[in-house]
């Protein structure tokens, strides 16, 4: 090993060029059978040894976001364990360093920096909220790290240092609105959301699309995160009688919102109004209670109930590792894709170097994804289907519709800004 390194460093000496070529040729032949040497697949000083590679997991396991992010941590650990069981990445076992973002954006930035600068991890799987992603983004760009970000989010971003494994806004919204307009004959919409960037941007896109279809938005309102008094908006909804309540309420507010909606006599199991949400996954329903949200529709790309072989295996493995009573939401599945996409990109690049992984990433496909088939677009987002699910009392969704084709990710949608 030592000799080979010397050889590479003294390329100018003719003799060593010759021996070097020989060594490289030997390596190439050996490569098919044995893992290549660490300095060949890692020229930038990442935490890669001859038989291990270290990655980072950066989510909140304490604080208000812990309830949402725990699923992602579990999914990422499961994926890493499965990859290791298959022999790892480029013959190297994945080891991970887990850091806690503590639901606090500056802490995310601090920990991201620690993972990249101190631990020199080859990739980071993490973040959940947009705020935490925005906080770590400059860190990843400055120190040239690679982040696999699992959450569906507002778009308007495309960093060379991030692979977005969740949907950007148009992938969740447009097909959903088309569906509700066509299948449910919806004419009027009431837009509603928590007050921050994701719901606002999503509703902006929704409004543009609704107006494009020649339909009407009869109301649009926002409430602070953690808001629990939705009676006034519910009264307005009763007054305006929209065909569709388009709800992007986030986190704990959901519990209050759906309970109050039910208490106010708005029965979502009836024909009208239709409630369509893009913010309630199986995880949130656990808090809301299936009986309170029964009959609502959600536009996601993944539901735990998806009926395909990949998903059955995934759900089984997930439950084996984390217990039978666990539920798997959209983001959890997207988080599970992260390590697999990274593995595929590394193997395509034949190297752990961030720049090479970045170049190799577009076009990477995953046929084993629980959601079906996904592929990385040039813009670092995933091609994926939009699916509509109908909420049931047992806290699961029944798939009622999925797009025929994969939806193209479009983080900067023309005409929607």
């Amino acid at each position, binding site marked *: 090993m030592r000799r080979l390194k010397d050889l590479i460093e003294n390329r100018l000496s003719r003799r060593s060029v010759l021996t070097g070529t020989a060594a490289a040729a030997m390596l190439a032949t050996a490569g098919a059978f044995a893992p290549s040497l660490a300095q060949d697949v890692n020229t930038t000083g990442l935490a890669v040894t001859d038989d291990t590679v270290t990655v980072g997991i950066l989510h909140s*396991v304490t604080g208000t976001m812990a309830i949402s992010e725990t699923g992602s941590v579990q999914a990422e650990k499961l994926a890493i364990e499965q990859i290791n069981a298959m022999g790892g990445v480029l013959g190297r076992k994945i080891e991970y360093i887990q*850091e*806690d973002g503590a639901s606090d954006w*500056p802490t995310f930035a*601090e920990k991201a920096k*620690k993972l990249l600068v101190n631990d020199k991890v080859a990739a980071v799987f993490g973040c959940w909220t947009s*705020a935490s992603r925005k906080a770590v983004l*400059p860190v990843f760009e400055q120190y040239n790290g690679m982040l696999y970000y699992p959450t569906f989010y507002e778009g308007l971003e495309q960093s060379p240092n991030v692979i977005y494994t969740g949907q950007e806004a148009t992938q969740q919204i447009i097909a959903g609105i088309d569906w509700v307009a066509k299948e449910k004959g919806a004419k009027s919409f009431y837009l509603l959301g928590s007050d921050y960037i994701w719901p606002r941007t999503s509703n902006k896109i929704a409004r543009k699309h609704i107006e494009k279809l020649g339909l009407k938005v009869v109301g649009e309102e926002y409430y602070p*995160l953690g808001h629990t008094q939705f009676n006034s908006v519910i009264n307005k909804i009763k007054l305006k009688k929209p065909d569709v309540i388009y709800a992007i309420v986030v986190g704990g507010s959901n519990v209050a919102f759906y309970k109050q909606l039910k208490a106010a006599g708005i029965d979502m199991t009836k024909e009208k109004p239709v409630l369509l949400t893009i913010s309630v996954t199986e995880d949130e329903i656990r808090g809301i209670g299936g009986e309170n949200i029964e009959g609502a529709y959600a536009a996601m790309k993944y539901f735990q109930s998806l009926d395909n072989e990949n998903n059955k295996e995934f759900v089984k493995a997930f439950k084996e590792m984390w217990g039978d009573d666990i539920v798997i939401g959209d983001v959890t599945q997207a988080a599970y894709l992260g390590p697999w996409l990274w593995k595929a990109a590394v193997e395509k690049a034949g190297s752990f170097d961030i720049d090479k992984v970045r170049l190799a990433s577009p076009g990477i496909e995953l046929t084993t994804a629980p959601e079906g088939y996904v592929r990385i677009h040039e813009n670092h987002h995933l091609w994926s289907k939009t699916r509509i699910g109908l909420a049931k009392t047992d806290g699961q969704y029944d798939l009622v519709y999925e797009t025929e084709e994969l939806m193209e990710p479009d983080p900067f949608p023309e005409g929607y800004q």
Partner: protein
Amino acid sequence: MTNVKSFLSRQDLLGLAIIAAVIFVLMPLAMDIFRLNLFGKYLTYAFVAIGLVLCWGRGGILSLGQGVFFGLGGYCMAMYLKLEASTPEATAIQSTPGIPDFMDWNQITALPWFWEPFNSLTFTLIAIFVVPAAFAFIIGAAMFKRRVGGVYFAIITQAIAAILTILIIGQQGYTGGVNGITDLRTLKGWDIRTDEAKYILYYVNGALLIGALVLCQFVLKSKLGRLLVALRDKEDRVRFSGYDVANFKIFVFCLAAVLSAVGGAMFTLQVGFMSPSFVGIVPSIEMVIFCAVGGRLSIFGAVYGTLLVNWAKTTFSETFPELWLFGLGALFIAVVLVFPNGLAGLYRTYLGPYVDRWISKKPPSGGTPAPAATPADYDADPAAKPAE
């Protein structure tokens, strides 16, 4: 020199020298730039903590809203840096190039009027001092002139912290909302993200902190400082002696606010962003904890307290990502139970006497011997005996 001697006793000079040595020599030698930058971040909280020593420890004004001022300073700096980072070229992808990205996301098409002045660095630097001072003055004048104090004042400061957080989050088009103001790059063309810049900012921060300590020591040893202690312990007596108590309180509250704001501005520079999570109730209370762990009567103690708590936070959370909050909680409980006067109290009880004896072996080099800390400094905490 006699002037300096009058407010810096030998003990204080020793304390100052040790802190300076730790900041300027020990830490840069012992740590790589990543850790040093973290350490620099902790030091920015120390500004708040020493402000609280003045305000709370000495003056008896418990403010649970210091995060407000930390945030104001930080936001002033962040606004300037954000404008500099939002050149039309850098933001060409937006619908309205030349305004900060989050404004564009919120369909704002022109720079709001109150952002305009932050194009100027001079204005920004002045604003970092004036905005929090003015805000603190308004709060102080409204409260202290009406003789609102004690618990009521603490509650009101909390309310203000909550209000400001809600305001910042709610007005996200103008403030960046929950995300805060992120992705700050340069200061007058100077890239603040490089290692070299981090070293420079660290030293600037350290120098400012030493300056702040000297200033606070000056205030504490002045007549004003003694009046503060007096009005903490018997406000009525001071008032009956003919002093306008409210003005002293307003002054010290403003001073603490300005110190916090300087810390906030340095925080933004070193960390590269500002967010409402530093403004709210929780960070404000945390800052009081820094001060309490250090010993709320000692400005030096406050610095060490801040460092200890933050170091513990980082270390615990890196070692036990899922359990670290319990460890931190245990630390706080231990502090209150075992050494209620914080690190400074420990020092005074166990180490202080030896240090004093060692110092007084050397003959004074002229001038009057430093005035002993007034007994009143300590009468609120019986566990700590006057050192001299």
